[in-house]
Structures are given as structure tokens and as C-alpha cells.
């Protein structure tokens, strides 16, 4: 069994992958079952878009569940997904604000690593108020999990498409 230790937090990739696969397949089945049986009124693209969103959310949530509440990012991800309905309404506003902040940050460029750390904080969920040390740790864990997730999804897609 290959296990990676990052300062106390052990990440067992195999068990993580298995859990993720299990959960993801189950959620896929659920999505398929709950999907409306080929409603002709709504267009195909919309349906696919909706399904895509659902699958993506299912993938992320299943990954977070597989990792468990040990890591910060998984907790943040679960919280975000749980409160997705509330956030969905405010999405447009948030996008506008983000654009403004981006411009502001571009105008006032500090030292290079700080700027990049900010970017990284934006990418990794739940890393907005972290020091650099734990940010890097979380990033490492997040990357490993993402890569395993991608592998599983890739395999599934390959099998299904053929």
C-alpha cells in the first residue's frame, strides 16, 4: 500500500481512490435515475449542461467525502457544495465584484511569491486564510486527490464511450 505522509496527515491513495470510485458511481447512477426520461420540450444542450454540472458536483463531493474531514480543503468543499443553493442566487454579483478586485490587484503588484500565493489560495478551496506552510501542504494533498479523481473519471469515460 502506498501512503504519503505530509506532516501527520496520512493520505492513503488506494483507499481514497476506491472510496471515491464507489461514491462516484453511486452518485452517477442516482443522477441517471433522477434524470427526467428524455423530455422533448427542453433542448439537448441544456440537459447536458445540467447533467454536466451535477456530475461535476458529484465528483467533487464524492472526493471530499472520500478524503474525510481531516483536510481543510475537503471540509471547505463540502461546506461550499452544501450551501450551493444559497450562493447560486448571488453568483452574478460575486462575479462582478471579483472582476473589480482582479483589476485592483493587478494595479498594485507586490512581491512575486505573495501574488502567486494569493492565486493559489483562490484555486484551493478553503485556503483563503492560511499561512504559506499549510497552504502548500493542502495544495499537495489537493493535487494528489484531483489527479486520482481524474484518473477514475477518465477510466469511466473511456469505458462508457466505447
Amino acid at each position, binding site marked *: 500500500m502506498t501512503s504519503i505522509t*505530509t*506532516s501527520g496527515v496520512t493520505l492513503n491513495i*488506494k*483507499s481514497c*481512490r*476506491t472510496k471515491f*470510485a*464507489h461514491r462516484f*458511481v453511486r452518485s*452517477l*447512477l442516482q*443522477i*441517471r*435515475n433522477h*434524470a427526467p426520461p*428524455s423530455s422533448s420540450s427542453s433542448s439537448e444542450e441544456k440537459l*447536458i*449542461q445540467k*447533467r*454536466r*454540472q*451535477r*456530475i*461535476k458536483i458529484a*465528483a*467533487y463531493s464524492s472526493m471530499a467525502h472520500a478524503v474525510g474531514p481531516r483536510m481543510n480543503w475537503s471540509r471547505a468543499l463540502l461546506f461550499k457544495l452544501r450551501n450551493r443553493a444559497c450562493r447560486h442566487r448571488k453568483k452574478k454579483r460575486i462575479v462582478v465584484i471579483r472582476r473589480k478586485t482582479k483589476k485592483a490587484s493587478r494595479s498594485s503588484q507586490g512581491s*512575486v*511569491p505573495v501574488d*502567486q*500565493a494569493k*492565486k*493559489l489560495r483562490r*484555486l*484551493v478551496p478553503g485556503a483563503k486564510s492560511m499561512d*504559506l*506552510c499549510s497552504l*502548500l*501542504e493542502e*495544495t*499537495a494533498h*489537493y*493535487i*494528489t486527490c*484531483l*489527479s486520482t*479523481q*481524474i*484518473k*477514475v*473519471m*477518465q*477510466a*469511466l*469515460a*473511456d*469505458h*462508457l*464511450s*466505447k
Partner: protein
Amino acid sequence: MNRALPEMLNCMNAPGTFLAGNSTDMTVLERQRARMKWHQHEHNDPIQLHQQQQGYNFSGNELSGVFPVPIPAGQAQGFMGLVCGDSEVKPDPCSENRWAELGYGSCGLVVNNNGAAGFEEMINGHNNNGNISRTFSCPPTVAAEKKSNDAVLSQKISSPAGKESFKKRKADKVQSNKAVAAEDDSTEKRMKGCAEEGDSKITEQTSNKNNTNNDRESSGDTSKDNSKASEVQKPDYIHVRARRGQATDSHSLAERVSRTRGVSDFYKSLSLLLQIILFNCLCQCLIVIIQVRREKISERMKYLQDLVPGCNKITGKAGMLDEIINYVQSLQRQVEFLSMKLAAVNPRLDFNIDDLFAKEMFPACAANFQTIGMTSEMTNSAYVQFNPVQQMVSSCGLDMGINSSDLALRRTISAPVSIPETFLDTSCFTQAPPTAIWDADLQNLFNVEFQQGRTTPFQSQPFTGSIEASNLKMEM
């Protein structure tokens, strides 16, 4: 010390007696002589010989002698010893360099290296101002005194080597006195004694202080004389005020105030020292913490370097962080793309749900039974395949899937020899090459499914040995 006191009293009284008839030159000469005498005494005194080594001993004595506020000398010594001990414990080669780097070089030097000398000087600095102004208050020596004051100041600020500066100051004084008194023999003597004077200057000053103290407190008549002298001296002398608010007149209210101020100055210096020590400790702790953090960060960076492909060639934090950001972004995009792909594929799933599961399960099975022969593997996989499929299909309630699986099962049961061919014909087997991703990880997943699927009537039917073996394998 005690022996030296009467001499100094004489010295102090001398100007008063001489002043009636003689000029100020004589007073200077007399004073020099008295000092020479006192120096001779001093050489005999064993305590004062060791005074330079026991800088803190001196300070304790001085405290008890000078300041009216009763400070036990032992305590002061103890404290000094403590401070000294601290400073002696500290020196570790790299820390000094660090202090130098941080720009606390001077402070560190005072505490670490020349802790004794530096402190001595600080205290001397306080006392010198008063003492010098008192002893050398004749008009011709004003310039020299100023010089000496300057020298003291410069000592206090920067120079850690106390002895040299003391000598320098002494030399200045000597020169000035020379110019005023023009007494060759006495100056020669003094030049002789200059080396020891540098060392014993401190004791001299303390004795001066003690002198003035005892003058006032213990011996009434001498104090009267002294006051007389000071009164008489007043019109001729230009009083140079000390820097620290010490009055030149030893019996005025200002003097008393200045003494209390002296105490406060001492405490100030102590608190300053303590602050410096605390600051040093804090800085050291901070440096250690920062170093640990840096090590941690570099460790994480290395780990990330291994994790992110194409990050090994890049050196520098910024570039690596850039690479990491790009990688994370690409991964997230990939997830999005794959979810899109799965969504596009999903509608077709409705028709061949069993296929999905067969495909999903197959690579795991293939990995599981690599050692077994081809035919047995096929049968195993077939068996293995259809249990979960059946279960899932039953749960989903799709007639198509059940029919197909039933057919397949019947085939497997009826003709175990022809299983490979029949299954090769079916869609699921030929399509799935055993990918490395699914190798051993979905085994567990599959096992779960398999054990759930065991409840199906499939089990009750009689089977060949190979399939039972496969069962065992699966459970393993």
C-alpha cells in the same frame, strides 16, 4: 577605600585653605599631589587591584556608598552576577553573527562579549559627569573637562574597549593640567601611574563620591569646612553643570535631587539592560521559528516538486508556484472536461446499464485473476460480472438488463466449456483492455458488490470447481 578617604578629604579641603592666599594654580597642584598620594595607597589596596576584574563588585559598593537609598550591595552583586552569567551562557558562534546581521551588533556586543566592561562604562558614565564637574571645576580646566566629558559620551555610545578611552581621557586631563600648572615632576609621576590610573579611575571616582557623601553625613566639621570652601570658591569658579542634572554644588537641594535621579538612572540602565536581554532572547526565538518555518516550506516545496510534472527543472519559489498554479488549474479544467464527457455519454447509459457495470468491473477482475488460465479467468469474470449486474438491474427494475443477464447466465451454466467464445462475442469483454488505473483499487469496490450479490439464487446452483476457486479468490 577607607584609607583613601582622608586623603581625599584633604584634597578637598586643600583648595579652601590655599585659596585664601594663593592662586588657582596652586590648588590644582595640590590636588594633583593629593591624588598621587592616594594612588600610592591605592596600589597597596588589594581590593582595588582586582576592581577591573570585578566590575560588578565595584558597582555594588558604589551603590551602597553613593546613593542614600539603601540598596544591599550583595543583591546588586547577585543581580550583576546573574546578568553576567546570562551573558556568559549565551555566546554561541552563529548567534553573534546573526545579531551583527540584524543590526543589533552593538547591543549584542555590550551584552555578550563585553558585558562587564560595557555595564561598567554605563555606570561610570552616570557618575563621571558629576564627579568630574565637581573635582575639576577650576576655570582653566574647563576645556579639558569638556573634552573628557565628550570622551565619556563617546565611550558610552560606542566603544567597547573601556581601558583605552579611559587612558585617552586621562591623557587629555594630564595635558590640560600640564598647561595650567606647569609642574614637570608631578606630571611625570602621573604619566607613570597612568597605566594603573586607567584601571583605578573608577575607584577614584567612587572614592570621590564616598568622600563627598561621608563628608556631609558622618563628619560634621569637615563638611563645614567643605561648605566653607565651596562658599569661598564660588565667586572664582565657573560651575559647569553636569549633563544628568547634577549640580556642581554638593549641598544644594539640586544635589539631593540629582542623587535620587542617579538612583533612577541606575534603575533605568538596569531596565535597559534587561530589555536588551529580553529583546535578544525574543529575537533568537523568532529566528528559530522563522528557520523552522522556512525548512518546512522548503520541504513542502520539494514534495510538490515531485508531485507536479515538469517542476523539477524550475528553480525559484515564484516559478515553482506558477507551475503549481498552472497544474491545479489544468486539473480542475480536466475535471470539468471529464464531467462534460460523462454527461454526454450518460444518455446512452440508459440502454446498457449492465454494460457500464460489466465494463467497470472487468478490469478489476482481470487484474485479480492474472495468474489463472485464460478460460478460468473468463468464467470467473463472467460469474463475477453478473452478480452485481443482476443486483443492480433488479434494483433499477429494467427488464432489458435482466433479460440479457439471464440469458448470459443460462449460457454460463449450461455450457461452461463454451463460455470464452460466447463472452467474447458479447460487447463487454472485447472492449475493455485492462487499464492500469483500475488495477487493484476497484477490487475492494468489487468485493463489496460481490458480497452483496451473493444473496442471489446464483449461489444455490451447483458449480464447477473453477468457479468456486474464483469465489475464494475474490474473497481474498
